């Protein structure tokens, strides 16, 4: 029969011990007016916040000290990330580098890349984007067509990427490009490169999302030159690498805590004496959230042990995104208000408006539910 590698052990004491310091940092940030919880989220790009988080030792926790990191366990990092999410902190300028690009470069990058980039990531001074999707390659990542061709001691890249979150603000992209033939399983011939967004040959076109917000972009490479030292992993090994990276991308609490602030606003808006409908639905959401927190913590434990729990990560994301999508739908049934992005002073209406317009992306970004269900089905032995 199938078996999932979840467990219910509490987080280790050294991870729990980190909680107090991250809370102290966040309290100070809020008190200084550096962010307003329900108006920001983990995707909100705020370079100054990330620099302060870096200075406070909250970024690059799992990276070795030799590269400016803190040599801590993934579970310490887990506690820091969930506290950031619960606080609604604007982590967009360091989230991707901290969550996946930095660890990926550390595992598979060249020494030169590690020395040049990891210390800056740890200081919160170096933002990364994910260059996977292309106009004709969304769910079907193996269809990537942007191509890198060897040229002397480097490579020349031509093509484009799309939906690249914060491409207009990041320093680097970790891009998946074609360097060879796909082969019979279509997974061959892909390689990851670190793309310097400031170098010539890269242009960015903004794409506005449903709320009119500029977060993602299209990125074009025209004879863009990259040194071989910026290749991450062996030539043609890209598929295995992105699969590993996606386990980090999919299993974290960011996959179900995107609207956590809306839940908080909802509880406050309902007040201490809910009617039965409000109590039941609030309790239902909290029960779902508690289960997800347990699942996510146990995936973090597996990742920390060097296991790549692709299926468990997909389960966290699929169940988690289902929860995230449901929160605004439930909230509007419990408290009848008209959502608005500009209801200054009405935190609940604003949070509801913001989340309603963002929610469709939850089950798309990082892999659609349909694709995740395929991954889960494979894990169940069905394909």
């Amino acid at each position, binding site marked *: *029969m*199938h*078996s*999932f590698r*979840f*467990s*219910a052990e*509490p*987080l280790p004491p050294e991870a*729990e011990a980190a*909680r*107090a310091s991250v809370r102290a940092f966040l309290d100070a940030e809020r008190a200084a007016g550096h962010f307003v919880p329900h108006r920001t989220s983990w995707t909100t790009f705020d370079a100054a916040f990330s620099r302060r988080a870096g200075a406070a030792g909250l970024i690059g926790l799992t990276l070795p000290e030799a590269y400016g990191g803190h040599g801590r366990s993934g579970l310490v990092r887990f*506690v820091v990330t969930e506290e950031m999410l*619960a606080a609604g902190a604007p982590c967009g300028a360091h989230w991707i580098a901290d969550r996946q690009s930095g660890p990926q470069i550390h595992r598979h990058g060249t020494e030169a890349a590690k020395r040049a980039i990891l210390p800056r990531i740890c200081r919160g001074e170096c933002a990364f984007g994910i260059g996977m999707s292309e106009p004709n390659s969304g769910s079907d990542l193996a269809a990537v067509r942007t191509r890198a061709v060897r040229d002397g001691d480097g490579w020349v890249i031509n093509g484009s990427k799309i939906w690249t979150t914060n491409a207009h603000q990041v320093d680097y992209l970790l891009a998946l490009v074609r360097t060879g033939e796909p082969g019979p399983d279509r997974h061959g011939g892909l390689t990851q490169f670190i793309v310097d967004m400031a170098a010539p040959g890269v242009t960015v076109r903004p794409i506005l999302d449903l709320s009119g917000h500029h977060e993602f972009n299209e990125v074009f490479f025209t004879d863009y030159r990259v040194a071989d030292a910026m290749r991450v992993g062996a030539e043609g090994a890209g598929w295995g690498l992105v699969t590993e990276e996606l386990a980090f991308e999919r299993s974290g609490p960011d996959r179900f805590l995107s609207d*956590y602030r809306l*839940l*908080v*606003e*909802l*509880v*406050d808006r*309902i*007040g*201490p*004496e*809910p009617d*039965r409908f*409000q*109590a*039941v*639905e*609030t*309790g*239902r959401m*909290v*029960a*779902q*959230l*508690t*289960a*997800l*927190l*347990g*699942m996510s*913590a146990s995936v973090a434990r597996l990742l920390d042990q060097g296991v790549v729990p692709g299926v*468990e990560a997909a*389960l966290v994301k*699929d*169940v988690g995104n*289902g929860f995230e999508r449901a929160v605004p739908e439930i909230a509007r049934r419990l408290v009848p208000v008209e959502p608005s992005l500009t209801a200054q002073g009405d935190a609940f209406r604003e949070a509801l408006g913001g989340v309603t317009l963002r929610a469709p992306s939850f089950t798309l970004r990082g892999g659609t539910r*349909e694709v*995740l*269900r*395929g991954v*889960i*089905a494979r894990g*169940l*032995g*069905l*394909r």
Partner: protein
Amino acid sequence: MDHAAEAGDPVDGIVLDQVERLLAQHLTPALLAACDGAAGATARAADLWPADLWTALAESGLPLALVPEAEGGIGLAATTAARLIRRCGRAALPLPLPETVAGAALWAATGGQVAEDALSLVPGGGPVRIAPHAEGFVLDGRVAQVPWGGSVAALLLDAVDAAGIPHLVRIAAPGTLRDTHHNLAGEPRDTLDLTGCIVPAADVRAAPGWAAGAGAPSVESVGAWVRAQQMVGALETCLGSALAHAQERQQFGRPLAKFQAIQHMLAEAAGHVAAATAAADLAAACWGDPRFVLATAIAKARCGEAAGHVAAIGHQIHGAMGFTQEHPLHRATRRLWSWRDEFGSDALWQERIGRAVCAGGGAALWPMLVRLRGGAG
């Protein structure tokens, strides 16, 4: 799925293996069919009470599995006892071993004397009152939906005294059996009139000191804890059966498992099973500590929600074959549909969680979630 080898303590592993063996040996299809009151069964096991099986379980000391060794039990970790109960749920064991395991441990925790006899837990509902009496206390009240209430040697129930103070009460000689109903799975759920029942003072006790005040464990919450763990077992059975069927059954020239619609249904079911298990694991880990009642509420609510989805998907994938009594699927699904509503429906527990959360306010929610998982909120 969990295997005995995963249990940290070797004794725990031995006990789980023993349960597995006993269940495999005794739970023949004929016995299970009789217990479910299935068509063609000669007699209802509800009336039968598979005594040989109970004797075998009792001889292995299993009724006191969760009672500490110092008090005559096996002293299993609560997380292992939860696994034992899941196995009973997985196998559709037609006996109240799960109720007995948890009830005996609860009773031992109050300082009460425990025995290996079958014990049942009385669900919440109408209040049973107790009043002082020359020989101890006298009861007043009627209880309904008591699992195997007509067959067990003793009952545990929540009762209140004249001042409204809650107590846990053990009744060694249950009152008059008024009525036997069966849940959707054919398990007996009895109504008993306890009025006039006299219990010695030693059998009326305060809830154990796991948590002060409103968070104190009640018989109702321990029953909910048991049903949540049993539901995990039945969810595993249901999903496992659907997976196996999807791989065996061919339509349009290929196994059902190859159709994307089927894969997605099964993936969705797997998500519910994983989430329900995570919630039940948490409740198992919280046995005996101040988080017990809240963690149990969450587990009962989450498992209850999963039950409906997973049972529906299980039946859809099995097609008409699964809609018969010839196929064993119904043993899991009829129990899921019953257990989710026993000892408080998911909605009842959700309501309690919601009231607690709203009373605390938004800012208190995150620290509460962190404390639940064992951290310092």
